[in-house]
């Protein structure tokens, strides 16, 4: 089975610019998550989708971050404008149903804001 696809793999932008990340989950996985992993830390949940609806976005900095999952499949995460502290790896994951059955993570997008 194909894994979770993410693009781009790497991105370097200047502060105050905008950036978008794309994720294609495993076919049939209803639940999709975006995590932020800052260097030296564990991943932190940003947003969780169930099909195309948002289940939890309590830790998403909504003044600058936005995410959507149109048609309940692909998802995009956008940052506008970016800050230096947004430098991190952005991980997308999907699961068939609940997290108790484990996730499949993508390889992530490494963002550097200069």
């Amino acid at each position: 089975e194909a894994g979770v696809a993410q693009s781009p793999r790497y991105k370097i932008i200047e502060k105050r610019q905008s950036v978008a990340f794309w994720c294609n989950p495993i076919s049939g996985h209803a639940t999709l998550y975006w995590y932020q992993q800052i260097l030296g830390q564990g991943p932190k949940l940003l947003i969780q989708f169930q099909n195309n609806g948002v289940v939890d976005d309590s830790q998403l900095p909504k003044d600058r971050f936005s995410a959507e999952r149109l048609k309940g499949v692909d998802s995009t995460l956008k940052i506008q404008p970016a800050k230096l502290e947004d430098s991190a790896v952005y991980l997308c994951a999907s699961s068939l149903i609940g997290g108790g059955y484990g996730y499949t993570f993508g390889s992530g997008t490494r963002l550097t804001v200069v």
Partner: protein
Amino acid sequence: AQSVTQLDSHVSVSEGTPVLLRCNYSSSYSPSLFWYVQHPNKGLQLLLKYTSAATLVKGINGFEAEFKKSETSFHLTKPSAHMSDAAEYFCVVTDNSGYALNFGKGTSLLVTP
């Protein structure tokens, strides 16, 4: 809130010796617990998971973990370390909804020849 504490940020072992990575959890209900591994510049890989079945959980690559409710612990062990085990290891618990994952800060495992 459900959370995990990884007691060691770095662990160093010699190849062929046992590995012990410690994790304590805090949960108001019976949690699902996981260990994930992350090799440099690679994605997160599930090692094993506990979901209220057997308390001793066997995972991939010879790793296992024991759920101890009385001690609120879920330590990861391996009898004999291999050089390829060098990586970052995360202890993880599901949140209140049972869906999202709360990660610990990670333990970096170094394996020396």
